[in-house]
């Protein structure tokens, strides 16, 4: 079975600088897919290559078994929502949204009908005669979305769509995006550097670094079973302890920690990945340390405990059990929950 969208061995360099390195990826129909990674990891270049706004040096992109790279940007059944929104400043909201349909040469009443319908979906119908400069950030974002979606593309590409919005509007828009994706039945590919955003919104995530895909997984999988140290570090809060595997335990800074069965050979360097919520406080534990500070986050509190490692250990704790700063805490966890990754 061939995938809806398949990217094969894609490469792109800017002079000496590698933007995309032999990248392969498969994306299913109607999937909400996120390309996640730090800035400069090549995620935006990949998105623009899909849109046809960036040429590639080598590789293939096939959409429903059709070669996408041979089509120019204006002929691809793919639409991009720009990070800057790129709304046409001299056109009204309505004209912005109708722009793509007019280029298709559709009959006038069909354009009017589809445009109005999409504007109603994003609740901007009563703003349709305004110019983009009269809109708020969230409204502009919705116009950009409406303009891209009205063409009924096979894939909607979103370049950091929520980065310009403040936190409250952002979470509303995340819901809105998810709802729209369901309603429209379109494959969404979203680029973001915000792991929380990717985790909360996407069906699957491809985590990229330096032009390569490091791991492709559902948010839960990626959180539970990070494939490399980079993934573990990038996704969520984590304690990453670098040490050495011995026959029955894991040695970190002279301390011996228990581990479950591992594939990694004894004597090799490894990283122990411990989520803050996997650690419990008790009267005895594997390690002990002094509570340095606690950060209150509403529902939970993040404790920072100095156990003599090269970093403070982060532990999640419920509000009414937060110890006084300065007390000695004993930390324990289920060794089977912790992940051991090779540190090469």
């Amino acid at each position, binding site marked *: 079975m061939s995938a809806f969208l398949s990217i094969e061995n894609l490469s792109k360099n800017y002079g000496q600088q590698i933007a995309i390195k032999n990248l392969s990826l498969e994306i299913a129909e109607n999937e909400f897919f996120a390309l996640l990674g730090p800035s400069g990891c090549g995620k935006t270049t990949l998105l623009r290559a899909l849109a*046809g706004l960036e040429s590639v040096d080598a590789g293939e992109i096939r959409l429903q078994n059709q070669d996408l790279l041979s089509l*120019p940007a204006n002929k691809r059944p793919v639409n991009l929502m*720009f990070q*800057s929104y790129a709304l*046409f400043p*001299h056109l009204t909201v309505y004209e912005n949204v109708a*722009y793509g349909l007019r280029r298709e040469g559709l009959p006038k009443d069909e354009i009017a009908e589809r445009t109005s319908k999409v504007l109603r979906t994003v609740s901007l119908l009563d703003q349709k005669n305004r110019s983009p400069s009269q809109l708020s950030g969230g409204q502009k974002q919705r116009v950009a979305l409406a303009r*891209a979606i009205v063409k009924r593309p096979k894939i909607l590409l979103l370049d950091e769509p929520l980065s310009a919005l403040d936190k409250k509007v952002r979470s509303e828009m995340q819901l809105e995006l998810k709802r729209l994706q369901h309603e429209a039945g379109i494959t969404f590919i979203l680029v973001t550097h915000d792991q929380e955003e990717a985790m909360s919104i996407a069906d699957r995530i491809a985590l990229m670094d330096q032009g390569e895909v490091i791991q492709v997984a559902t948010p839960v999988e990626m959180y539970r079973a990070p494939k490399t140290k980079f993934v573990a570090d990038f996704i969520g809060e984590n304690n990453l302890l670098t040490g050495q595997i011995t026959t029955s335990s894991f040695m970190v800074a002279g301390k011996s920690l228990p581990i479950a069965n591992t594939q990694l050979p004894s004597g090799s360097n490894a990283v122990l990945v411990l989520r803050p919520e996997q650690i419990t406080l008790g009267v005895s534990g594997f390690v002990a340390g002094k509570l340095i500070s606690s950060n209150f986050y509403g529902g939970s509190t993040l404790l920072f405990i100095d156990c003599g490692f090269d970093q403070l250990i982060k532990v999640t704790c419920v509000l009414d059990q937060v110890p006084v700063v300065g007390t000695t805490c004993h930390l324990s966890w289920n060794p089977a929950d912790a992940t051991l990754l090779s540190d090469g």
Partner: protein
Amino acid sequence: MKKVGSKLGWLKLPLYGALLFLYLPIAVLIFMSFNESDAPFTWTGFSTRWYGELISSPEILTGFRNTLIVAIAATIIAVVLGTLLAVGLARYQRSAALEAIALTPAIFPDLALAIGLLTLFTNLNYALGLDSVIISHALFCAAFVTAIVRGRLHQIDSSLEQAAADLGDTAVGAFFRITLPSIKPALIAGALLSFTLSLDEFVIAFFTNGPSTPTLPIVIYSMVRFGVSPEINALATLVLLTSALIIIIAQRNLKVKDQI
């Protein structure tokens, strides 16, 4: 606030001094253009007779007509070429050197440009006349248009054109539907500036013109050679006002549109 202002009032003296220095000759010119007497340096009373005589002078009217033809034609050519050049510079290349080369004719010494053009036309055996002046004016005006439009293109988001392409528009369509409307204020400003520059340009017109089709500045020059008549004052005042008016319109246009 008031106290500070009044204390430092004398600091404004250089400002007023500079303005006086700049505008005194022009003020004298305008003032004398309403002089009743034909003696250039003595005031005898207010009159608009020199403005009347302007209109009845066939040389001045021909000069004015020639100047208008040159200014309009040169402006049209300059705006088209300058805009294309600016778009090319902004969107299709990355060389800073090329950009500098494209903008240099604007600050080129007039005389050098004039001599160069004259040499070129002579070598090509091109008969000098209004058309050679139009070509020459279009050349240096285009550099100004390029500079203004280039500046505007710098401000507008280059992803606008990409968005148009993404929505299914061709490159040409995106240029006319998106690029051109967004740089419209710069086009108007560039056109007005070109028009004023061409309107009172003397050196290049003098070198590249034929003898039978003098433009207004050339007419004025040949009149001045036989002494400054009050007629010239009136004419210079009119040219000055036209230029000033156009520049003001151009600047307002750029500013107002930029706020939107």
